């Protein structure tokens, strides 16, 4: 009996391990529609908005990025980031940073939408760069997006867009929770270790296509049952052992169980 209990405990703890492996860090942030982005673009050169942004900046950002965004020992210069970088960092919640870490994690947006718009306008004004990509995934081409994604994005973000490891504690985040606009901004801005994929690399159509493919990967047309996290052979191997081999080991314990021995004995004796 105790051996049976230990089997059950083993199975249970193994399943817990498998469950932990399946959990991947997701990100969540507000979704911007193309019309929101256009509305934001329209007020980026509004002096009042820029002034509001400057006063916010002087309260919330100067301690690291310096007075006027020139940077300090604690944070990089923002003089060349422009609207795209500011919008990406603020709207994914990566800025402001809660504590110094190798890679800013995404978290809920810290400022209200209006405050965020103002800060973006101020940082855009510092660089005199008010260009914002307008992502319209529906206009993209799914097949082209897939080909470009597998060639350019999958090496870090994984073919299933679940993210992947980089060196020294950094990682390419999962894209499965990231709104399309932020994916486009990340391509144009190149945050952290990510390369810049500017308009000379990907046209707007190609950017839209990639975003459309990532949107597809969020809920792919995916036959074959439970996806096991789309991590590939690692979770498949765990499943083979924890589900398949465990079931079969229980099977052979059952086939050779004392229960049957007694029953066969009894029938033989009775003959």
């Amino acid at each position: 009996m105790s051996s049976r209990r230990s089997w059950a405990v083993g199975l249970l703890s193994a399943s817990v391990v498998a469950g932990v492996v399946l959990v991947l860090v997701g990100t969540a942030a507000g979704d911007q529609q193309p019309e929101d982005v256009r509305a934001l673009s329209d007020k980026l050169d509004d002096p009042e908005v820029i002034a509001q942004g400057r006063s916010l900046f002087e309260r919330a950002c100067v301690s690291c990025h310096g007075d006027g965004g020139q940077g300090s020992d604690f944070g990089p210069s923002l003089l060349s980031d422009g609207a795209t970088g500011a919008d990406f960092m603020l709207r994914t919640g990566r800025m402001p940073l809660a504590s110094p870490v190798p890679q800013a994690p995404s978290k809920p947006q810290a400022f209200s939408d209006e405050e965020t718009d103002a800060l973006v306008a101020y940082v855009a004004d510092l660089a005199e760069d008010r260009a914002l990509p307008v992502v319209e995934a529906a206009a993209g081409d799914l097949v082209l997006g897939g080909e470009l994604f597998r060639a350019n994005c999958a090496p870090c973000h994984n073919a299933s867009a679940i993210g992947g490891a980089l060196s020294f504690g950094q990682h390419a985040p999962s894209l499965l929770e990231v709104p399309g606009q932020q994916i486009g901004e990340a391509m144009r801005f190149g945050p952290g270790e990510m390369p810049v994929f500017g308009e000379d690399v990907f046209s707007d159509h190609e950017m839209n296509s990639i975003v459309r493919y990532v949107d597809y990967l969020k809920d792919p047309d995916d036959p074959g049952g439970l996806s096991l996290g789309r991590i590939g052979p690692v979770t498949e191997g765990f499943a083979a052992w924890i589900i398949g081999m465990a079931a079969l080991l229980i099977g052979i314990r059952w086939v050779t169980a004392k229960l049957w021995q007694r029953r066969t004995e009894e029938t033989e004796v009775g003959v």
Partner: protein
Amino acid sequence: MTGAATPEPPVEGPRTRLGRLGDFFDKRLGLARLARAALDKIFPDQWSFLLGEIALYSFVILVGTGIFLALFFTAGQTTVTYDGSYAPLQGVEMSAAYQSALDLSFDVRAGLFFRQMHHWAALIFMAAIIVHMMRVFFTGAFRRPREINWVIGLSLFLLAFANGFAGYSLLDDQLSGTGLRIGNAAVISIPLVGTWIGSFLFGGDFPGDAIIGRLYSLHILVIPLLIAVLLAAHLTILIRHKHTHFPGKGARDDNVVGQRLWPTYTAKALGLFFITAGVLALMAGLLQINPIWLYGPFDIANVSSASQPDWYVGWLEGALRVMPNWTLSIFGYEIPNPFWGGVLLPGVTFSILYAWPWIEARLSGDRREHHVLDRPRDRPLRTALGVAVLVFYTVLGLAGADDVIAVAFGLSLNAWVWALRVGCIVLPIASAFITFRVCKELQLRDGPAPATGQRAPGGVTPAGDAGGDEAASSDPVPGPAVEPLERLDEAKTPVP
């Protein structure tokens, strides 16, 4: 059968048509004796003796599902344009092999089910082989006279391993191509001859246009045939040697205690076959495996992060990943880094495993025949060594998934790789020490080990006293009646 009997008085020989047919063959081929001997074969009733059977039944299922897949798979590397029903790849150029694998997944009725069942069966096949080998190792079942079957079993493991890798590589998706590229790199890292072997196997530089066709011949013909032949030898030798058994229940070196093949064991074995098939079918239907449509066609310029091999190749991948960045020059010949983890490690591993029965016989000085198994605790050194080896390869297997684990648990990949480098040395030593101590404590708790090769107190009838020579007879002392398991005799369990 008796339904067809006529009311005539009994005559010599069978009276039914079927019986006469059987008699015809028996008179000419002597089949009844073989059948009776086979059906009377005694199997000890212990769960761990069925581990090898899981592997056997997985192989049967692999052959069955494989035949279905072969009806639809095209092993070609010619470039085609996909026009099947998976929209995100429509119009993409790919190899004929990848296209037919997509068709199998989306456009062939039940194709995806059979693909997934084939793949799950392969993973379970390897797992069952390894667990079976662990049972054989830890109980000393490889000792004389079973050394040859150890060697055959290990060869079966290697063939299954090779065939799994070939099957994984056939589909020509991005993941399989990445695996093949790593395999190619390991081959060409062999000093002096590597590049030659590499271009011999691949028909030139990687990837070439020959490898898929070659792997296909190996995967569906050559290796399965070799597996079938060695499997037949493995089982024939098993029958010839009779089964080993654990101490207790009257088990001695000159008998086998258990149940006959017919009827009890037949029911159990058939039952286990259906359990295996059922578990694999459930996994095939409920759990997605290898979604090749997400990986895309293989392009030598592309790679996806977290590209892992199937689990049983993970230790090789891990060895490549944890190996420090060393290259050596000997007499002006450079030994490339993949050589250490990709060639030397498996070479040493399998050489030692092949030689193990003789290594142990030399170390222990015990060259006698053994049919009663060791309990692992009674051989603490062997058990500790086995556990250390398993821990070592498990750590390497985890190292093969180091990036996935680093992301999943928010670890620094670099720190994690160093932890694995230290771990693959420290953990085996620590676990060997702990295992040794646990074995010793269990021995103390048990008292002395049960005597083997000698009569158990009270004496019992050896198994198979009615079943030919299962019990080699040096048993003049009649035990107190019989062990309940041994009450079967031919009168009660007639062989049809």
